[in-house]
Every structure is written in C-alpha cells, then in structure tokens.
C-alpha cells in the first residue's frame, strides 16, 4: 500500500482535503443562522403559548373545572421547558454578535446595545419572576394574583419579542442615526433613539411575528390535542384544547394572509430588491404574480426564472399589488450589482405563503366540523391536525429566511 501511495496509484488525503469548505464569513453566517433557527423555535413557543396559558389559567381559576387545571398544568410545563431552552439557546447569540460580527457590532453597537438590555431587564426578568409564581405559587398566592401572574408572563414574552424586533427591524429600515468617524472607523451614532426604535418596519414585523407565533403554537396545541383525542375520544381536557386551537386558527390564519399581503407592499416600498427576489423578478418592468410555481428540473430549482418554471400566474398582478396598477413598473434584480441568493428567498417565500393558505383551509375545515358539533369524530381531520403540528414552525422559519437571506444589498446601480 505504501508503495502504491508513493507511486501515486493510491491517493491519500492531502492538505487540500483538510481545507475547510466554507469561508470564515459564510461559516459565521451559517452558525448564526443555525443558532437563531433553534432559538426562535423556543422564543415563538413562549410568545404563542402565552395567550393559551392566560386563557387556561383564567378558566381554571374561575370555573374550577378539572379539564382546565389539567391543561394549564400540562402546557405550563411545556412553557417552562421552552423558557429554559430559549434562555440557554439565546445567551450564546449575544456573544455571537461579538465573535462572529465584531465589525458590525462596533458599527451599530449604540443602536443594538440598548434594546437588547431592555429585553433582558424589562421583558426577560418580568417573564422569569412571574413564571416562577405560575409554576410554584398556585397554593401560595391568591387566585387573582395567580391570573395576573399569567398575564404578566405573557406581557414579558411579548415585550421580549418587541425589543428583539426593534433591533431587527432597524437592521431592515435603519433611521435615527448619523455616520461619524471614531478611532478611524465609521460608526452609526444614535441621534434620535425614538425614531430608530420605532422605525418603519417595526409595526409590520412585530404584528406578523406575534401572529405567526400564535398560529404555530395553535397548530402545536391542536396537533397534540388531536393525537390525544384520537387516543381517547371522550377526553374532556383534550377536546377543549382542540376546540381552542381551531378557534384561534380561525381568527389568526386569515388575518395573517391579509396582513402578509399588506406587509409585502411595505417591503416593496422599502426593500425593492428583496421584493424582486421574493418574486424572482429579474427584469425591471411589469411584474406577474406567480400563484403556483414548480421547478421543472434541478437547474430551475436553483435558478428560478419564470421561463424555466411551471407557473400559474396572474399577468401584471404583482405590479397591481405593489402599486395599484397592472402596468406599473417594478424594479427588478437587474437594477443591482449584487443580489441575495434568489432561489432560497423565492422558494422560502412560496413555501411560507403556501403553508399560510393550508392553515386557512385547515381552520375552515375545523370550524365547519366545530359548527356541526363533530370536531372529534373525524379521523381524517384529527390526522390532518397531527400532520400539521410542525408546519406552523416551518412557515415561521421560512418567513424569517426570506427576511434575513433576502436582505437588501446596498449596491444599487441607481443609488
């Protein structure tokens, strides 16, 4: 063997095989993407489960019915584990700002530091303190205080999301700062914190994220409830949970679709490059809306252009949605020197939107059966709810991939 290796007949691994496949920048970005992907599952669990906890706690205290006590106890434990996991997976992320993106951290530290500190001291501590009351204080505090604690845990979870999204939305539509030189480096000096915090993207992003989290958790609660109803049809607790999940979905899923449509218009106004990537709109001009887009081969999957895809499209409708005119020109990707990975953004967007419509269908199906009073009777419906359990999270993640991977590059040919 040694002789064969020396003669070149047997190729042994050389230094070139040990060279990492990723650049430092790409590995840093993937690492941040991976950790935040895991972290956001737990953050969304806290945000989405909070209203369920408040409802179940209130019903438990006011009715004294066993089914509410069981459900409160069950989902409170899930909330508690999710809270711990959210903390454990979230703490390394604040360090990763420094280890992975030190130049960006130095550049925008004045903006990012404040909201992250607010998140920890205002929201996280509030949530942590009153979660302790919820977990260990049922017999130690009054009923009123117990219900109030559940509300404050929910407020903490939603405030936590608010401060994190203040930072992220500023990274999408930055304002309230000026560029100054400090120690030979350009940095963003905060000149108007209110304008920076309440930047144009914040209300869109906050509502969409909160609602998406509630949908994801409603599907989780509904899926778990469907499984246990299937196992024991007369389970009072799990029939109640299934009904609650269906009612929440009936409200939130259609709202998310309507809000998403308006949100896309805002993205077109503020980040036209991202909007063009979402629609794979390469050439500036009138833009079609692709209701359905399927790849015909692998290359059309990695390079999604309308001419290479099987599409069902409404001509000029993307122009209409963005500008209210079928013939309105929409800036295409050709207007930019450098573009985000279009395939990832395009398919993630389609996946998210497709799932959104699936959730509406599931909610309507459940609503119809609920009206008939036969929600738990259909094996098919229970099975569909079980299968949909992780899909709310899938939609939430792909939505964030659109937001982050499709981030507007600054290098417009026209700017």
């Amino acid at each position, binding site marked *: 063997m040694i002789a064969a290796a020396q003669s070149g007949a047997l190729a042994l691994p050389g230094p070139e095989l040990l*060279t*990492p*496949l*990723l*650049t*430092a*920048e790409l*590995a*840093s*970005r*993937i*690492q941040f993407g*991976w950790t935040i992907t*895991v972290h956001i599952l737990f953050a969304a669990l806290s945000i989405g489960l909070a209203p369920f906890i408040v409802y179940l706690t209130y019903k438990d205290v006011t009715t004294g019915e066993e089914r509410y006590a*069981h459900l409160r*106890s*069950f989902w409170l*434990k*899930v909330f508690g*584990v999710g809270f*711990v*996991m959210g903390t*454990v*997976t979230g703490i390394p992320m604040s360090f990763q700002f420094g*280890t*992975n*993106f*030190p*130049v*960006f951290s130095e*550049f925008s530290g004045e903006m990012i530091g404040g909201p992250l500190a607010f998140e920890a001291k205002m929201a996280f501590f509030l949530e942590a303190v009153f979660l302790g009351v919820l977990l260990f204080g049922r017999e130690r505090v009054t009923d009123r205080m117990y219900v109030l604690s559940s509300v404050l845990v929910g407020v903490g979870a939603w405030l936590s999301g608010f401060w994190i999204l203040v930072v992220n939305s500023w990274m999408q*539509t*930055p*304002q309230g*700062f*000026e*560029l100054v030189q400090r120690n030979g480096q*350009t940095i*963003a000096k905060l000149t108007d914190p209110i304008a920076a915090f309440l930047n144009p993207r914040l209300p869109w992003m906050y509502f969409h994220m909160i609602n998406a989290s509630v949908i994801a958790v409603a599907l989780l609660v509904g899926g778990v409830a469907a*499984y*246990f109803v*299937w*196992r*024991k049809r007369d*389970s009072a*607790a*799990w029939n109640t949970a299934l009904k609650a999940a269906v009612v929440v979905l009936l409200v939130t899923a259609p709202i998310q679709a309507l809000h998403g449509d308006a949100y896309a218009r805002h993205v077109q106004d503020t980040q036209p490059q991202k909007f063009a990537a979402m629609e794979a709109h390469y050439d500036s001009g009138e833009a079609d809306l692709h209701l359905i887009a399927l790849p015909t081969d692998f290359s059309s999957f990695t390079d999604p252009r309308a001419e290479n895809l099987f599409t069902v499209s409404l001509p000029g409708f993307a122009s209409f949605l963005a500008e209210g005119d079928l013939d309105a020109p929409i800036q295409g990707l050709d207007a930019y020197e450098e573009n*985000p990975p279009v395939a990832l953004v395009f398919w993630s967007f389609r996946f998210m939107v497709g799932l959104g419509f699936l959730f509406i269908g599931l909610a309507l199906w459940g609503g119809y059966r609920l009206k008939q009073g036969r929600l738990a009777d*259909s*094996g*098919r419906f229970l*099975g569909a709810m*079980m*299968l949909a359990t992780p899909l709310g999270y899938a939609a939430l993640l792909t939505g964030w991939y659109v937001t982050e991977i499709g*981030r*507007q*590059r*600054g290098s*417009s040919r026209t*700017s």
Partner: protein
Amino acid sequence: MVRHRNRAPAWVVQDVLTTSEAHSPTLTAAEATGTLALFIVLYVLLVAAALFVLRWLMQAELERMGVESTDRGSGRERLPWVSGDD
C-alpha cells in the same frame, strides 16, 4: 469603510450587514467551521435533552388525564391518516 462615505446612511447599514466587512477579520475559516460544527452538535443535544425532560415531566400529567390507559397509540392501531376512518 472608506467606500461608504458618499452613500446614504441607511444603505451603509445594509452594506455592513451583507458584506464580508461584518465579520471578524482575524477569524480563520478553520476556526469558524469548527465552531459551526460544535454549535450544530451542541444545539441538537440541547433539543434532544429538552424533549427527554419534557416527556418525563408529561408522563404523570397524561396518566392523570387518562390518555395513557388506552391501547391507541401503542402501535396496535393504525394512525388516522393511514386508516382514514371518518
């Protein structure tokens, strides 16, 4: 950063975020790839541990609710999307 001087501030933020300027200039590819691998393993183990703890915590609760005492879900009966009962 010199090239940003004549650009609108909002675009400079996007430039910093989306270019290699954002990351550490001293971090090597090997270090970054190794850390990435470490975090993948670490977070998978964390999630697995959380699921294990959750299952342990839930067991007593489910027994109290009576759903643990049925045969369904024990592998003796097909799941509903397979059997299609309606």
